[in-house]
């Protein structure tokens, strides 16, 4: 559950070594070798970075771009990286800041644009779903609705609460790791986590009540 599982101490050491090596190669102007060495770091952190970006952006394409930007930015600013800080923490900070900037830009954009109805061309059709033996369409629909509700509730949380909740609960980081990533105290992290969950429960319960009332109305007036 904890972030130590995803990034243990040995991998942390390997990260530091790789980052230092890339930095040295960059300084010597051996760019091809620096890129080859950097590929190790990318491969090690890419999946986790993709997940974090997706939790923030809620859109695969935008998450993809945010991850790319973060890796490129980290590579070009590697000279400012201090070895005493874990590479994972430094990189995740870059990624989260990038995601937050993108969310702000998107919010500004959406003020002026009318959103199109959601289309999902990547989803398999009914026959494919039946043939694959996956969950029934009804179960998929319910799961999607639930995800949308949770995402909408998460979007209503203040930025810090949302970050703390996603990092500690979704990514399984410890309070100390979240503290290092967000720059908050460990006790503040716990307070934010508690408040985030309390607010989420309230928001989701309200949604469920609204849905229940709507269902009652439909039954009364079919």
């Amino acid at each position: 559950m904890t972030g130590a599982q995803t990034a243990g101490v040995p991998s942390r050491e390997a990260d530091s070594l790789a980052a230092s090596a890339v930095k040295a190669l960059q300084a010597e102007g051996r760019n091809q070798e620096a890129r080859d060495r950097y590929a190790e770091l990318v491969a090690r952190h890419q999946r986790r970075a993709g997940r974090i970006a997706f939790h923030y952006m809620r859109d695969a394409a935008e998450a993809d771009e945010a991850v790319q930007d973060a890796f490129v930015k980290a590579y070009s600013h590697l000279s400012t990286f201090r070895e005493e800080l874990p590479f994972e923490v430094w990189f995740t900070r870059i990624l989260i800041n990038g995601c937050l900037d993108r969310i702000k830009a998107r919010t500004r954009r959406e003020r002026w644009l009318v959103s199109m109805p959601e289309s999902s061309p990547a989803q398999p059709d009914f026959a494919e779903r039946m043939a694959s033996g996956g969950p029934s369409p009804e179960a998929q629909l319910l799961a999607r609705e639930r995800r949308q509700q949770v995402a909408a509730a998460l979007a209503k949380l203040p930025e810090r609460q949302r970050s703390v909740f996603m990092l500690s609960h979704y990514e399984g980081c410890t309070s100390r790791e979240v503290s290092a990533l967000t720059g908050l105290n460990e006790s503040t992290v716990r307070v934010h986590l508690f408040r985030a969950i309390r607010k989420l429960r309230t928001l989701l319960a309200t949604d469920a009540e609204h849905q229940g009332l709507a269902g009652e109305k439909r039954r009364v007036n079919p």
Partner: protein
Amino acid sequence: MPNIRDLLERNAVSILSRLGANRHLDDDALLEIWAAATSTTDPHLTACAHCRARFASIDTWLDDLRTDARAEAEKATSPERLAAQQAQIFRRLEALERPARIITFPKFTRARGEQRRIVPRWVPTAAAAGLVIGLATGQLFNLTDMLNAPRPATNSGQLADNVPRPSGQAPSNPSVDEAIFYGDADLTARSAQFLSTLDELTPRARDDDRPR
């Protein structure tokens, strides 16, 4: 060394303050325990089965949330997508190291820096020679005198001089325009005479007003 009795009392007070009217932990207290990850050490939770069950339901709800969110995120980070992403990252890194290239405007076939106009040497020589020849020819034929020489009088000019001009208008240099304009003076005078005869014949309105 802290007094054990004091510690126990303080602990009891904190637990009691978190208990609701029905002597069970409320939702906030349960969430607080979850957030602090102290469920195994909380004295009330270990003792009360009812609160433990409620805590377990909260824990399950949160686990479901995580499982769902992670499954969705994993779906968005498929191996193919990650491979494409990695390739794109390294393309961008390579592009960073390449020096910036100036792209020429499509109209020009060569870059602007390379474009140098080479003027052949005979062009200024030919221009200078042309100027000298022109001046010499001008001197030879005395072009200024030729331009200022009086022109021979034309027929229309003579005619224009014979035409009576309106009073107050001084005769000016005869020109073709004037000849055309004053050339019809005879016709104008004749038609004036004819019109005045016609005017005399025509009855007037004031003649009609007289009593008959």
